[in-house]
């Protein structure tokens, strides 16, 4: 065990290695580790925020769903009411129309009857004249007795 100049050499080595560690090893490692710690903390915080957002969104979606259901029920009820209303209206309109048609038909029939009666009247007069003509062919002059025939026609 003898102390000699080796001690100086070793002190220099020691200083060199401390310098390397201080300059090139520790600062980048420390920075990397600190950054990672920060990233992990950020990630955890973000995860928590995401969780909260998810809960909020779930609550909001439930709310929206409930609102939509209410609205749709309302729409259905309104539609039902409106349908009922339309049916009522249609019924009234149909009745009016039917009455109109019936009235028209009745009027037409009346007219036809009148017309038929007229025609019938003319025919009877003709037949009566024709009959009378046949009977009186020789004795009755149509032109002489025209006044009397006209009066007869009027009475029929």
């Amino acid at each position, binding site marked *: 065990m003898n*102390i*000699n*100049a*080796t*001690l100086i050499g*070793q002190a220099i080595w020691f200083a060199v290695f401390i310098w390397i*560690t201080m300059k090139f*090893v520790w600062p980048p490692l420390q920075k990397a580790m600190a950054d990672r710690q920060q*990233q992990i903390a950020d990630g955890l915080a973000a995860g928590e925020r995401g969780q909260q957002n998810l809960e909020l969104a779930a609550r909001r979606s439930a709310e929206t769903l409930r609102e939509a259901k209410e609205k749709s029920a309302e729409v259905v009820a309104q539609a039902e009411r409106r349908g009922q209303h339309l049916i009522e209206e249609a019924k009234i309109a149909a009745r009016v129309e039917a009455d109109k048609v019936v009235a028209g038909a009745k009027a037409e029939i009346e007219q036809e009857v009148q017309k038929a009666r007229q025609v019938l009247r003319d025919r009877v007069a003709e037949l009566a004249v024709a009959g009378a003509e046949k009977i009186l062919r020789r004795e009755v002059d149509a032109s002489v007795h025209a006044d009397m025939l006209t009066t007869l026609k009027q009475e029929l």
Partner: protein
Amino acid sequence: MSSELTTTGYIQHHLTNLTVGSGFWTWHLDTLIVSGLLGLIVFGGMALVARRATSGLPSGWQNFIEMAVSLVDKQVKDTYHGKSELVTPLAITIFIWVFVMNAMDLIPVDFLPITAGAAGVHYLKVVPTTDPNLTFAMSLSVFCIMIWMNFKVKGFGGFMHEVFSVPFGLKLAPINFLFRVIEDIAKPISLALRLFGNMYAGEMVFILIALLGVWQLPLALPWALFHILIITLQAFVFMMLTVVYMSMASESH
């Protein structure tokens, strides 16, 4: 070499440094080269990994280094509450460097000396921490940093006041001073001798086991396993005491 194959010769051969120079200017080449190479490899590698360090998912080596480094950092944070940027790198350097140098102990005792012998190098003491020059170089460096930190944190007046007034008050200033000198000188000496003694003794046991012929096989393994504990513990103790001294230097009593 064959003439040295007595027990004493074998042991002495293993404990002799490869030297150059004479007197005080003797250089232990094996200590200087082994410790320097180990340091360059380990700290160079760490610097390379640290340069590419990402804050994302760390790769295998980065993960490993981060684990070791943050273990040291945690100890420093628990013990040292000052502001100096030097203490953590210092502690990391000590822990890693002492650990790898101690770990040279686990290479079978004859392996590297015989390899070197074949290359024409006749003496090789492989474990640098069994050289008191190294342990004292480290402990004295730590001592100097400690004194410098005392001055820096407390100022000249504050430091002198502490030296002369603690623990008995200013009336007994000479006794306080004497106590302080003994206390501070004991620090580097105990630091250096503890590491040196442990590693020297461990190496000695390895050498003695290697002398047992075929019986070394069942004995070398358990001693090596046990020694893994010692090399880690010694590296940790050296680091921890350094941090404690730094913390004492930067806190007023």
